[in-house]
């Protein structure tokens, strides 16, 4: 066969490829741009879209609000959203397209830690400011030094240390622990942090079962049977999304909550869905300092307005990824503002923007937070106990503790997994006083 002419091949191929990318690249300059373009990568398909879609929704809402109040220094903001579900190959191609073809000014990359680890080097290569808005692995800034990336939220270390301190504060007599984590990087990493920290603070607590059902599991019957037989004092699980919902329901249906105290550092994002199936007295975390009824911010106009508007548009209460998205956008707004001011009103270069992001303190929906010099964000950790109240059809948080970053986050230049070995009962004693739930 092989009877193809050059003309035919060219004609067909070019028409098949006729596309918007044959456009001139606009010149990069320091004059005030007509708009700020953001590239956002998030999960729009697959199981992690439970977080990805609320994150995207929050971005839509917040960017609309931002533009309504005049954009950033008078410049309107627009976002291009890409799906990170098909994997790293695709994501990196998409990031290049956004940077080199769509002339995106800032990238807001990723929920999955794998994606963040892959995008950080690319941001260096492209000299593209990158804000990691939701990925959790502590490895990013511990194992690499990135000129072009910052993270506007905490990481896995405080997210796990805080609930552990909380547990040991309220139940110092714990003897046995079992873990049921999803079998992938986060499930393994979070357990490693918990285990090292626990052995340092209270050696002698026995781990009676380490269960890692496969990622995406739909049935935890066997695990629950084992846990019922073993009767551990504490069941720890950093599962999330549909799997956490399933685990909670199946455990509740089989009365596992009556036998063990559950520590669920990501349960805030499942509360509305599982409803009061989740009993009272479960330790719940939110991957940071945010909740729609945040104890110190719930009566502020900013949070109230956001929650109302978000509910009106999307029919659900905002969960942690929406707050993480908000943190990234507020950080960006603050950084541009500060850099412009420092520049005497002139538009900042990308380098200036990055320099300003490091060390930046900014206000977000539930408080004020800081980005460290290495690019890592510092935010408090909100942990509480689930409680049933008549005003909501799902559990709320009671006896809330706001762990300050100094207590639960390893200092710059240290490795989290090593640092947690320095924790002790004294650290537990420094736990701030709990704040009760108030309607």
């Amino acid at each position, binding site marked *: 066969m092989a009877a193809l002419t050059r003309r035919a091949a060219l004609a067909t191929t070019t028409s098949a490829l006729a596309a918007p990318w044959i456009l001139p690249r606009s010149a990069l300059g320091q004059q005030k741009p007509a708009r700020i373009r953001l590239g956002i990568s998030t999960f729009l398909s697959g199981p992690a879209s*439970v977080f990805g879609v609320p994150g995207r929704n929050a971005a839509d809402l917040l960017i609309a609000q931002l533009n309504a109040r005049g954009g950033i220094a008078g410049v309107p903001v627009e976002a291009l959203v890409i799906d990170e579900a098909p994997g790293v190959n695709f994501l990196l191609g998409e990031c290049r397209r956004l940077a080199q073809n769509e002339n995106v000014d800032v990238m807001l990359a990723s929920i999955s830690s794998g994606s963040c680890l892959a995008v950080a080097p690319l941001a260096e290569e492209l000299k593209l400011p990158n804000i990691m808005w939701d990925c959790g692995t502590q490895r990013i800034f511990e194992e690499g030094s990135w000129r072009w990336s910052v993270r506007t939220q905490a990481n896995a270390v405080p997210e796990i240390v805080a609930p552990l301190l909380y547990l040991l504060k309220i139940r110092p007599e714990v003897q046995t622990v079992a873990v049921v984590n999803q079998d992938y990087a986060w499930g393994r990493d979070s357990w490693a942090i918990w285990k090292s920290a626990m052995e340092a603070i209270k050696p002698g607590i026995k781990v009676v079962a380490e269960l890692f059902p496969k990622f995406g599991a739909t049935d935890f*019957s066997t695990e629950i049977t084992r846990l019922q037989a073993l009767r551990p004092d504490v069941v720890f699980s950093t599962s999330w999304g549909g799997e956490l*919902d399933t685990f909670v*329901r199946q455990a509740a249906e089989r009365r596992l909550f009556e036998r063990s105290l559950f520590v669920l550092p990501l349960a805030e994002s499942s509360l509305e869905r599982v409803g009061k199936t989740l009993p009272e007295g479960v330790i719940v975390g939110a991957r940071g300092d945010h909740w729609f009824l945040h104890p110190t911010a719930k009566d502020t106009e900013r949070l109230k307005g956001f929650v109302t508007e978000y509910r009106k548009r999307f029919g659900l209460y905002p969960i942690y990824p929406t707050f993480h998205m908000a943190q990234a956008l507020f950080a960006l707004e603050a950084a541009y503002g500060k850099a412009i001011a420092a520049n005497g009103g002139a538009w900042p270069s990308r380098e200036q923007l990055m320099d300003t992001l490091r060390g930046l303190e900014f206000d977000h929906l539930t408080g004020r937070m800081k980005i460290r010099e290495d690019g890592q964000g510092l935010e408090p950790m909100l942990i509480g106990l689930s409680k049933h109240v008549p005003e909501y059809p799902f559990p709320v948080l009671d006896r809330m503790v706001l762990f300050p970053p100094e207590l639960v986050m390893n200092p710059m230049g240290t490795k989290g997994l090593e640092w947690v070995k320095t924790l002790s009962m004294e650290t537990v004693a420094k736990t701030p006083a709990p704040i009760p739930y108030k309607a």
Partner: protein
Amino acid sequence: MGLLLLLATLDGLAYAAQLFMVAVGLTLVFGVLKILNVAHGSLFAIGAYLASTLVGLAGAPELSLLALALAAMATGAVMGPLIERGLLARIYEKEHVLQLLVTFALFMILEDVQKLVWGVQPLFEDAPVRLLGQVEVGGIFYTAYQLLLLPGVAAVALVALTWFLRRTLLGRTIVAVTHDREAATAIGIDVRRVHLVTFTIGAGLAALGGALAAPTTSLVPGIGVQMIVLSFAVVATAGLGQIEGAAVTALLIGLARSLAVYFAPELEVVIPYLLMVAVLLVRPAGLFGRTVLQRV
């Protein structure tokens, strides 16, 4: 130890029942249409999502079991003929690879359809499970749904299907087409109709599997993907088109898996595949498969 084995068996049984419900439809369709339907997992997912919607609509918990059955039947009755007449009927003459890919394309399309219809938030309607309450075995609580209803329905499905295929005229016609399509056509069997009926039953079984799973688990995007690969393993291990074989294999995989959770958790995920490789090493056409004579 004895108790542990018993517990593992009970868990394995419930899992096997769910696996069988999905695999049996796949193997039935393959037996007759000779098409391995990748979109079978999507039918499972649609059945599950629809069940969850209907259970929500039903309101009263007493009606929820009915809602599950209704969801399965509706999915089968609508999606089955739609896919068979609209798509598969056009490709019976094509190569196997192309047939497989048509269903793969369908799977890709249906994945997004689910997302567009039901969104990405996990759905969970466990009214049927709560309705049936709990059962205590050796100090361990099980749900009656998981311990009794799931294996019960699977057993009924197995018996009913074998009875249908062996004892009814339509069933025997289907079997005849499975054995020799040309001869069946020659004696005046309407193969078109057999295809339609079989595929609809298969789709209904996939949807029933999904509907039964719906009250026990959260429905998230991608739930069909999980199921399809696993049921491929069941079907290939059992031998293509083998209904009782699928039951035995599902049981083997279910038990092996729950034993693995107790004694070798690292192996849990790979067990179905290792089992498949081991079986095919010894019996190249599967546990119950027959080797077909090659035509020269």
